[in-house]
């Protein structure tokens, strides 16, 4: 199938529920840890190299044909914050709905049947990429790009930043995105032989802590 499918999967307008999630930036802004374009860039870069690498690895492994149920367990083990697990599964359900309509495949149907409450989102994304004929590296790019662009887009709304600055900072992250996607795809390749422990498990203590804090807020704009 066409490489153009990657553009569709990575498009922020792909209707899979991502627009209502801030990728932790709403909490970071509330703590005044992020307040301008520079601090936003540092946030996105740190997130990309931690949870971004981990999700990209899961997506790439799913696209490479690693058993999605084992990947789902691996994703749980890499997501110690229950609020973030719930978000990942909710987004997985929503991605599944969009993916089944867009790139129907037996793999997606099987996973939907095995995980009716939703699999972790990057695994669904990876299977959708596989269904679209994309490579594990493509899937890693889609996951990594979404990891960085989500908080950048949310920050534009929350901080009234100049959207051109946000686009510029994402462009500045290009080499980071290349590095993360490449590392994720390599690890996915290893995982096909060695199992899921070969996948990245890069994590951030603050994203876990603030993710749980955010879930306890009674007033918030974003679901996570």
């Amino acid at each position, binding site marked *: 199938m066409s490489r153009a499918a990657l553009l569709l999967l990575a498009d922020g307008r792909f209707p899979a529920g991502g627009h209502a999630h801030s990728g932790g930036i709403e909490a970071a802004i509330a703590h005044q840890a992020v307040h301008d374009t520079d601090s936003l860039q540092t946030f996105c870069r740190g997130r990309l*190299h931690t949870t971004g690498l981990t999700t990209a690895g899961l997506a790439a492994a799913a696209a490479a044909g690693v058993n999605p149920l084992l990947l789902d367990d*691996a994703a749980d083990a890499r997501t110690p914050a229950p609020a973030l697990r719930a978000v990942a599964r909710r987004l997985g359900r929503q991605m599944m709905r969009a993916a089944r309509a867009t790139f129907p495949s037996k793999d997606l149907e099987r996973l939907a049947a095995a995980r009716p409450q939703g699999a972790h989102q990057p695994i669904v994304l990876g299977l959708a990429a596989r269904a679209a004929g994309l490579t594990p590296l493509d899937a890693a790019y889609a996951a990594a790009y979404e990891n960085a662009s989500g908080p950048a887009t949310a920050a534009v709304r929350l901080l009234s930043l100049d959207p051109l600055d946000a686009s510029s900072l994402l462009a500045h992250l290009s080499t980071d995105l290349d590095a993360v996607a490449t590392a994720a795809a390599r690890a996915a390749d290893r995982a096909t032989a060695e199992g899921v422990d070969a996948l990245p498990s890069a994590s951030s203590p*603050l994203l876990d802590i603030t993710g749980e804090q955010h879930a306890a807020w009674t007033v918030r704009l974003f679901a996570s």
Partner: protein
Amino acid sequence: MRHSPHPRQPQRTRHHAPAATQRRPVPPPTPAHRQKPRQGRDHRRDERPLGGDRLTIDVTAGDRAALEVTTAAATLALRGPTTAPATYDVRLTVGEHASLRWLPQPLISAADSNLRQTCTVELASTARLLLREEQLLGRANEDPGHLVSRLLVHRAGRPLLDQQTAYGDPEPGWDGPAILHGHRAVGQLLLVDPQMSMRRSPILLRPRSREGCAVLAPLAGGPALLATAVAPTSSTLRELLDEALTHALGQ
């Protein structure tokens, strides 16, 4: 905190029979505490992991054994004669109905050090574990070295927790708002207990504080609670983890 004993020689190692088995002979922890031959420098003269060192600790609590391992003082990662990373690998195995408390003192990542640490835990399905990890990034008024640390826990052969952290230059964004945001002490406390009630809501510790905070929450893959804490200092970090432990034990 300046002196550091060799991490392969915990200062206190206790074996005792679990209460449930006291009426009959307790199989010895097999092996209770095995040390692998060290490669490289003589650890008796050098008590700290230096660049290029490769250290391994292997601890097994055999079926029905109870084991507690602590160290008396912090482990200090220092700059070595080479820029190659030192490695420090801890492998913990806990058998059926066995219990391990792994409570070492903090690991300090000193300036210009370069350490890759792994802690790999294999738990039987009825095993109990209390594990604390604390990392201090730099001594007083010192930039930290480069510390990459992975904690990988399997329970009954399935992944329970898998987390890798990477702090210090050249890690991208490590001190920024997504990862540490200036905090210099970071730690985790993991409690695995098959007898624990698992319908627990997350507990937020000091959520509005700028001087450190933590969350205690259940893991997905088993009867396990994990506390994750960040703090500006080691003492605040310990307070948070102690507080988390109190909650975890339901006290």
